[in-house]
């Protein structure tokens, strides 16, 4: 069956042009970039070119780009690295951070660090008042994601910057979901560190980056051969890094077009969803143009999900990482959404190849499924 992929916040299909630049690195002799012979030097040059492509896409300096095995590692690295290096007792984050920011902070509790949470509003954003509520001093790191993976809600980075400046803390934003979907300029955000992932922007899986401004000093997470200026040891994943670089270059070119396109799809989708009685989360705040997180009251989310998958629509319930467990989305709970409603939440995230027809087909399929489910519920009742 024809598959309609509406789960671009989980992962994206690699762009053919990206694959094109990666192929030579998968098919022929490639050196270890640390080696001094020509194979090694060639690999080194290619990595440095990719570093420039990444830097250019987000307006950072190439020396600020540290390649990692992905967003999870970059987030772990900044949390662990800032805590250990800064030696200040407090870590601050929003209560809707991805688990790979939240869990490392929690793990550090065992080693004596304390954690303070910035509670998001009903719309899923951290407000100025929330920042004011944090009275703690001695903060190593404050981390607030740029755009949420589930709701798509965009946070005000100026507030994060002001707070970090006032507290003399390092600031970090997880931009994994935002990058490629909105304009992200590291130099203008005045944030110390930022996390990027390749496989959310039509690049390969298994690579990401921590963007760390030159003034910030952190401890590594992985020790060894001293690659990435001693901050991330391990033989570089050349093919993936080259692919990531190319994906960054492509995203810079196509971001505006894609964003306009997914906005159109999002508008069509949401008009119909509301018509069908859906609640759309974070609807009132600035949101990614591709993400719609919604629920129907009294409709079991996972049943709907399975039914829609059978009809060829790949969508998600909450984030992919936590979809293993049946717990309601922690993001929605943090927003104070009713647990039952939260349990039924579904996420649609569009990508550049989705079409209006697909969206319309989806709505038709959804109507039918809703009808069936409502009948079933009526019988059960």
């Amino acid at each position, binding site marked *: 069956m024809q598959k309609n992929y509406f789960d671009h916040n989980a992962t994206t299909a690699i762009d053919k042009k990206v694959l094109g630049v990666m192929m*030579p690195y998968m*098919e022929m002799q490639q050196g270890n970039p640390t080696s001094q012979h020509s194979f090694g030097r060639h690999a080194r040059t290619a990595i440095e070119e990719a570093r420039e492509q990444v830097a250019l896409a987000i307006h950072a300096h190439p020396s600020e780009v540290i390649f990692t095995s992905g967003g999870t590692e970059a987030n772990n690295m900044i949390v662990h690295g800032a805590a250990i290096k800064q030696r200040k007792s407090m870590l601050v984050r929003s209560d809707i951070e991805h688990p790979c920011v939240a869990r490392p902070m929690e*793990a550090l509790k065992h080693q004596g660090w304390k954690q303070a949470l910035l509670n998001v509003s009903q719309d899923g954003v951290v407000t100025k008042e929330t920042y004011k509520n944090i009275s703690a001093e001695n903060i190593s790191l404050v981390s607030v994601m740029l755009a949420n993976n589930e709701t798509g809600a965009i946070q005000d980075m100026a507030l994060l910057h002001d707070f970090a400046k006032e507290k003399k803390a390092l600031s970090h934003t997880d931009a994994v979901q935002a990058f490629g979907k909105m304009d992200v300029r590291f130099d203008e955000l005045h944030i110390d560190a930022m996390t990027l992932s390749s496989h959310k922007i039509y690049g390969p899986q298994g690579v990401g980056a921590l963007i760390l401004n030159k003034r910030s000093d952190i401890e590594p997470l992985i020790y060894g*051969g001293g690659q990435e200026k001693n901050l991330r040891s391990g033989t570089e994943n050349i093919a993936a890094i080259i692919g990531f670089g190319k994906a960054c270059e492509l995203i810079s070119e196509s971001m505006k077009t894609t964003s306009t396109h997914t906005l159109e799809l999002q508008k069509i989708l949401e008009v119909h969803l509301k018509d069908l009685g859906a609640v759309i989360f974070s609807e009132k705040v600035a949101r990614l143009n591709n993400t719609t997180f919604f629920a129907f009251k009294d409709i079991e989310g996972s049943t709907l999900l399975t039914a829609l998958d059978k009809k060829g629509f*790949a969508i*998600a319930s909450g984030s*992919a990482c936590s979809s293993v467990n049946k717990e309601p989305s922690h993001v929605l709970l943090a927003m104070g959404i009713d647990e039952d409603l939260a349990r039924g939440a579904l996420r649609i995230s569009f990508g550049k190849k989705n079409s209006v027809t697909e969206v319309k087909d989806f709505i038709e399929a959804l109507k039918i499924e809703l009808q069936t489910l409502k009948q079933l519920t009526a019988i059960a009742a």
Partner: protein
Amino acid sequence: MIKDKARKPIYLDYSSTTPIDARVAEKMIPFITEHFGNPASRSHSFGWTAEEAVEEARDEVAKLVNADPREIVWTSGATESNNLAIKGASHFYSTKGKHILTVATEHKCVIDSFRELEREGYTATYLEPEPNGLVDLEKFKKAIRPDTVLASVMFVNNEIGVIQDIEALGNVCREQKVIFHVDAAQATGKVDIDLEKLPVDLMSFSAHKTYGPKGIGALYVRRKPRIRIEAQMHGGGHERGMRSGTLATHQIVGMGEAFRIARIEMQLENERIRKLRDKLLHGLQDMEEVYVNGDLKHRIAHNLNISFNYVEGESLIMAVKDIAVSSGSACTSASLEPSYVLRALGRSDELAHSSIRFSIGRFTTEADVDFTIQLLKEKIYKLRELSPLWDMFKDGIDISKVEWAAH
């Protein structure tokens, strides 16, 4: 253009990294183009297909080392595996004690993980190997203390290729109730590994040293008796909480295929490679003042590490630019320090400086070896003609007795 440029020198640096086997690449590509799902996505078939492939690959990795697939945890590579095993187990069992034991010739990422634990308050012992590179069992035994929590010894050394007696060392650890970690990055596809028999608790693997892709590795974590580790990377709870992060499906698939091929072909391949290595050894040993570093008997077939006395290392590397080789480990060759591995064997700085590691692999031909012998003979002759030390040696002066003005 890239192809021409890259093919010209003869590649004899397989211990640094290997090319991806064409069969591996072929298997990987569909997982980049078609089956691109996130294996953690449980709500649609894109995710399921990816997950299935990931589990199939896990089976293949487990099979090569005769382990249970549930004992295999994916990581971004051997560096991460070593960090995770050493820090993760030492942290988890820290109530037992805070002494950790390794060997001075371990890979940098093992040494640096130990150094990090020392900063955290652990005490570390870096055991000196014998001059042949092997660990003395008695010395190893003596180095273990009542508060020793973990010992880490590599299976095969990356620079000199010597194979440690992992079974004997593991038995010592078992008796003393010490967690035993083995870095096997250089061992897969080169030596038989049977984790059902070997008394090893944790073992690190890399794909790109065994004709798989870079950026992927694995850690074996024994189930019976069960070994626990503290995660170093937290998040979505992937890999049963031991290692979070979206897994690169195509890379995992590549590692699985690379390890499958290794399992099937290693015996024949090792025989062929041993012949080539021996030919290279005999060819080079024709020259005067040539020293093999590390034990020749307990050694993988793929490695020859050899010092050319009275020739400086870097100029030697420049002289042999038509072959791609390493002087010391690739990971440290950016620095000007002589190889710490060779120094630990008691080699003088001069001999350590003038060492070359030849590592032979799947695509090395006999013609490559013939060319290499010829090239080395020519270049060593030329450099020795340039070398004041060679003159002195020929004049019968003992260089170690000369008083050199430090600069």
